[in-house]
């Protein structure tokens, strides 16, 4: 009887553990945690480039651009009307925007229009 109870307990534990592992592996718990958290991600501006040029984030994420270049840059949404627009950022200045809706947000530097980047919000 004791041996049977012990086996059932061990089996139950193993099954529950396996289910939890499978669920986490499929991204179920993972995506719940991501959506629940308010993340902040950074885009570095350096040598006339946005790094990374394309950033994929979850809805609700705040993206912060940091100008590490030694020349002013701006971060301006390409959308009409503009979703976001920074002032001219000097060296080490920051600009943040929280992406609440899914979609692809293209942006550029209004001083150097060939500098472009993209934020993909899922």
């Amino acid at each position, binding site marked *: 009887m004791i041996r049977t109870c012990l086996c059932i307990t061990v089996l139950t534990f193993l099954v529950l553990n396996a289910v939890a592992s499978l669920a986490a592996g499929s991204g179920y718990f993972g995506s719940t945690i991501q959506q629940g958290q308010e993340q902040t991600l950074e885009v570095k501006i*350096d*040598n*006339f480039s946005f790094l990374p040029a394309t950033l994929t984030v979850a809805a609700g994420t705040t993206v912060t651009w940091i100008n590490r270049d*030694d*020349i*002013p840059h701006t971060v301006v949404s390409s959308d009409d009307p503009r979703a976001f627009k920074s002032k*001219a950022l*000097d060296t080490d200045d920051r600009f943040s925007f929280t992406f609440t809706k899914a979609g692809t947000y293209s942006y550029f530097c209004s*001083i*150097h*229009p*060939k*500098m472009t980047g993209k934020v993909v919000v899922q």
Partner: protein
Amino acid sequence: MQSPLYADVVLLLEVAIALGLLGGAWLARRHKFREHAWCQSVAVLLNLVLVAVVMVPSFREQVSPKIPAKLGKSYVGLPAAHGALGGIVELIALYILLAAGTKLLPERLRIRRYKLWMRTVLVAWWLVLLLGAATYVRWYVPLPFRH
């Protein structure tokens, strides 16, 4: 190159204007004074349009808010020097046009040593052009030795 189209166009036009002024000076040496007057007038007035339409708005938006706090930075100092010297040279050039090409100014305000004034302005004009070109490079050209 990361420059917007208008900056490229303005730089090319300014080089053409400066070369035009040199050509106008050559015309004066050939004693073609009427052609000289037209050439220099067109150059000075075209520059005035570019300054008013492109350079002043750009300067007010990008540079003047950073003066005097960041005047020591080359991306502010260069355009500030270019703007200050360029403004003075353009005003003197306009004054020479008025004094030499019209009778609007009273006799006592006329220039007497034209050659000295004109040659000084021509040299200063090229210095302003060089400052403008340096500003263009500083703002729009990624330099390999920065990092």
